[in-house]
C-alpha cells in the first residue's frame, strides 16, 4: 500500500508546494512510491483518506483554524511544511503593526474580511509531528524526508548551524566582512545557499538547538549594528524581535 499524502495550503505564497513540482524528474518517481490524494494546486480530485498531511502556510483567519483541526483529525502524521507553517515566516511581520490598522490600510474599510487574526504558527493551533523548515523548503530535503516516512525511519534534521555548511563550501564569513548574518544560530540543511550567493542568512530554517544568540548579538554590536537593526533581523523569520539585547 502506498502511503496517501495530502498537501494543504493556508496563508502563504505556495512556493513550498511549487518546490514539490520543482523536483521535476524525481517527481515522477516520487509518485511511484506515494499516492497524492489531495493537492489542490496540482489536481482536481479532493480525497479525504490521507495518512500524511503536509501543511503549508500560517493561520491568519478564524476560518482556517477549523479547517486545520479537521485535517489534524484525519491525518496520522502532520507536517509543518516551510517557514510560514513552522515559524510564521514573513507573515509574522504584520503582527508588528496594530491589528486595527490592517484592514483599512489594504481595503480602505473595516467591515470586510473581519475574521483576519494575528499570524499563528501551525503548532499554535494543532499538534505538529514533524517540521520541514525553510523559505522555501529544500526540495532534496523533502525527498529524503518522504523516503524516511515510507521506510518508517525517524526523519532527522541537522542539529548544527548553517555556519558548518557555509565553511565547508569555502565561503568567506559574511560577519567577518562586516555584514550581518544569522548562520551561527540557524539550523543547517540548506547547504548555506544564501551566504553562497553572497546574501546574509536571515534564519528561515529556525533556530538550531541551543543557539548562542547572546554571542552573535555581541559580535554584531561590535561590528557597529544598532540594537534595533539586530532585533529587526532576528524578527524577520523567527519572531524574535522582543528579545532582550
Amino acid at each position: 500500500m502506498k502511503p496517501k499524502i495530502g498537501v494543504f495550503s493556508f496563508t502563504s505564497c505556495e512556493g513550498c508546494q511549487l518546490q514539490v513540482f520543482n523536483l521535476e524528474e524525481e517527481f515522477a518517481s516520487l509518485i511511484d512510491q506515494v499516492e497524492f490524494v489531495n493537492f489542490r494546486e496540482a489536481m482536481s480530485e479532493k480525497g479525504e483518506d490521507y495518512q500524511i498531511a503536509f501543511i503549508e502556510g500560517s493561520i491568519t483567519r478564524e476560518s482556517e483554524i477549523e479547517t486545520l483541526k479537521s485535517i489534524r483529525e484525519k491525518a496520522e502524521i502532520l507536517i509543518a511544511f516551510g517557514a510560514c507553517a513552522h515559524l510564521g515566516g514573513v507573515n509574522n511581520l504584520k503582527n508588528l503593526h496594530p491589528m486595527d490598522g490592517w484592514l483599512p490600510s489594504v481595503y480602505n474599510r473595516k467591515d470586510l474580511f473581519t475574521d483576519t487574526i494575528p499570524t499563528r504558527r501551525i503548532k499554535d493551533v494543532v499538534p505538529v509531528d514533524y517540521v520541514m523548515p525553510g523559505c522555501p523548503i529544500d526540495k532534496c530535503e523533502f525527498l529524503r524526508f518522504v523516503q524516511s516516512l515510507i521506510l518508517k525511519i525517524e526523519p532527522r534534521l541537522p542539529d548544527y548551524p548553517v555556519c558548518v555548511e557555509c565553511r565547508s563550501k569555502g565561503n568567506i564569513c559574511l560577519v567577518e566582512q562586516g555584514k550581518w548574518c544569522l548562520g551561527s544560530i540557524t539550523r543547517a540543511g540548506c547547504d548555506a545557499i544564501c551566504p553562497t550567493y553572497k546574501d546574509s542568512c536571515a534564519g528561515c530554517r529556525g533556530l538550531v538547538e541551543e543557539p548562542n544568540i547572546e554571542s552573535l548579538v555581541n559580535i554584531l554590536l561590535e561590528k557597529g549594528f544598532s540594537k534595533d537593526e539586530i532585533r529587526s533581523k532576528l524578527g524577520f523569520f523567527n519572531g524574535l524581535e522582543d528579545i532582550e539585547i
Partner: protein
Amino acid sequence: MTHDIHLHHITRIEGHGNLVLNIREGTIEELRLEIVESPRFFEVMLKGRRFDEAPHITSRICGICAISHTTASIKACEAAMDIAPSEETVLLRKILINAEVLQSHILHVYLLALPDFFGVGSIIPMVDTNPDIVRRALRLKRAANEVCRVLVGRHVHPIGMDIGGFKRLPTQKDLDEVRGLLESTAPDMDETIRFFEGIKMPEFNRATRYISLRSKDEYALYDGRLYKKGIPPIEPARYKELITEEVIEYSTAKHARSGDESIMVGALARVNNNYEYLCDEAKEAARRLGLEPPSTNPFMNNIAQVVESIHCIHDSLKLLDLLSSRSLRGEKSQIKVKAGNGVGAVEAPRGTLYHEYDIDEKGVIQGVNCIIPTAQNLLNIEEDIRSMVPTIIELPKNEIEQRLEMLVRAYDPCISCSTHFLEVKFVE
C-alpha cells in the same frame, strides 16, 4: 434551463477561488468569481522596513513569480533613489525574467491546463499513460529553473538579485552553463509545438482591452511603457491613469479596470500588443498554432504561452551573446539613500506587475501599492463567463462546470498573489 453551479476551491490554479453561478430559465441571476485566499497584508508588513528589505520580503508574495516580484521591487527602489543599474545587470535581469516566464508557462500549459484536454483530473495519471509528455514538460521546467539556480541560487525566492546590481555576479562559467541549458531545450520545444498543433482550443471570442508593457526596441518583458491600443504608451509611473482598482465585497482580491472597461493582461495581451517584436521562431510557432493577433479567444492564452516560451529561449540566447561581447564587471551602482517615490513595472508571467514605494530620507518605506496581474484579469474573467454561458447552456451541468473551469484556468490565475496589497496611503 436552471443550474446552481458552485465550484468550491477551483483546482489546478495557484491559490483559492470559488465560482458561483446561478442560472434561472436560461438567464444568469448571479455570477461571482470569489477570491477567498487569505489576505496577507504585505502593504502593512513593508511599512517601517528599510528599502533594501523590500525585494526580499515581496519575493514572498508569490512562489511562482518570485523573480518578477523581486525585479519589480528592485526597480521601484531604484526609481525612487535614481539608481541606474549597469547594462550587464539589465541583460542578466532580462535572462532571469525570460527564465521565469518559461518555467511558469511550461508549468501552466503542461501540468495545469493539459489534463483538461486529456479528460483527467491531474497530470499524475498521465505519468503512466503519457510518460513522454510528462517527462518533456518536466525537462523543460527543470531547464528554466536551473537557469535561475545557476544565476541567483534558486527560482523560488531568488537570492543573488539586488538593488543596483547583483549580490553575487555570475561568472563566465555560469553563463556558459546557462547557454547549455537553454540550447538543450530545442528538441523538446520543437516537440512542444508539434504537440500543441494537435490540441484544439475551445472556440469562444470576446474582444476586450489588452494591456501590457511596450518597448520600441524589443518584445517588452523587463521594461517599457504601458500600452493599451488606441492611446499612446505612457510611463509606468503614471499607471493610475490607466488602471483603477475597487474593493469587491466577495473577493479578497480587488478588481481592476481601465476606465469603464474590463482588461486582460498576460501572454495573450502581450502577443496581441507586441507581436511584431517576437523573434522569428516564435512567430513561426504562432502561425503553426493558429494564433493570429489580435486574438479575442481567451483560451488562446494557453497558445500564447507556448509562443512566448519559444521567444524567451531564443531571446535569452541573444542576450547571452551580448553579455559575452563585454566583460562582466563586479561593480554595483552606488546607492545614495534619499527620499523619493518609485514605480517598478515588469511583465510577470501572468501580466503587468506594479510595485510602488514611498521611501523617506532614512531609507524607510512609508507607503506601498502593488497591483498584481490576476487582480487585473478577474473582472474580465467574469465578463467572459457572462458572455460564454449562453453558448454552452444546453450542455449538461457537469460539462458547463468543466468548460467554465477551463476558461478560468486559461487565464492561469495566480490567486495567492492577487490578494496581497492595494491601496495607497502615501505620506505627503
